[in-house]
């Protein structure tokens, strides 16, 4: 039983990871795609890489919520508070990224990384978001080691917020499944 649960969690984490992986080429394109006659930027510190990974993960979550809400507007009252909190997470993370703005261009605006359509059933979509929240919280914890104390505290707080979202989503019983 425990093994099954552990496997399920790993799977959902992988799914989230693969979602953020699809954004990596875009980040790379944003920072290196334009030919720059000057020397390239200094390689980002561990802390900045950690921050960028967190930003990508939050962007993926925000994107996922928006897609679900686009498909299931009836869930708006329930999901909107969580989406707003993720937008707050993203804003805080981005405010700590002290690099030239062009290097931190938002990859979510690009149509190049199609995210699969959310499930047609509202309850399945909520389940998917719950898994994404749990996966995101777990991923934040893995980033703690490579963060400065102050960033680690922000990541831990965001992870705690995501853990509360996952619990609230699992208690949600959306009306009108399909």
């Amino acid at each position, binding site marked *: 039983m425990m093994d099954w649960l552990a496997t399920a969690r790993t799977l959902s984490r992988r799914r989230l990871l693969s979602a953020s992986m699809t954004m990596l080429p875009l980040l790379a394109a944003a920072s290196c795609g334009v030919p720059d006659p000057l020397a390239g930027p200094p390689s980002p510190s561990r802390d900045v890489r950690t921050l960028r990974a967190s930003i990508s993960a939050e962007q993926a979550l925000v994107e996922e919520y928006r897609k679900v809400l686009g498909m299931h507007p009836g869930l708006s009252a329930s999901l909107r*508070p*969580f989406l*707003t*909190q993720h937008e*707050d*997470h993203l804003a*805080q993370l981005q*405010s*700590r990224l002290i690099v030239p703005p062009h290097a931190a261009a938002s990859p979510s605006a690009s149509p190049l990384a199609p995210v699969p359509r959310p499930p047609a059933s509202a309850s399945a979509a909520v389940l998917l978001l719950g898994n994404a929240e749990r996966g995101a*919280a777990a991923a*934040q*914890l893995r980033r*703690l*080691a490579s963060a400065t*104390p*102050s960033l*680690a*505290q*922000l*990541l*831990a*707080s*965001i*992870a*705690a*917020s995501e*853990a*509360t*979202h996952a*619990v*609230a989503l699992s208690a949600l019983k959306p009306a009108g499944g399909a």
Partner: protein
Amino acid sequence: MAGPGPVPTATITALQATLAAENAAIYGYGVAGAYLSGGLFTAAQRDWNGHRAAGATLTAMITRLGAKPAPAADAYRPPFPVNSARAAVSLAALLEDGVLTAYLGLVALDEVALRTFGAQRMQASAIRAAFWRGSTTAFPGLPTSALKS
């Protein structure tokens, strides 16, 4: 966790502060429980037990690091009069806020294991706080002064 070298003072201080927050929560849930009934009483009892277990864990950690766990106070004064179920629920949410901030202190330490431990305990506490408050927040445990506007 206790490496070969001496344990940094910051580590012991942060663990003692966390134990103090847990002791305040244990006392506070006792007060809150007196004004709750039914499902809310059961929830208070569940959380009281959770904090007692966490207090025991911290006591063991501090002892293992060669320090003496600070004893709990005889009594803790709630920040507002608790004489109704409504006030009891507010107190429970406030107790979790105190615990959250204490564990946040562990997350700033150099030891990765303590960072992870602190972050995991923050999740448990944030879930309890959201239960008592009836809503979730974006930055559990973080003071607004830590956020950039």
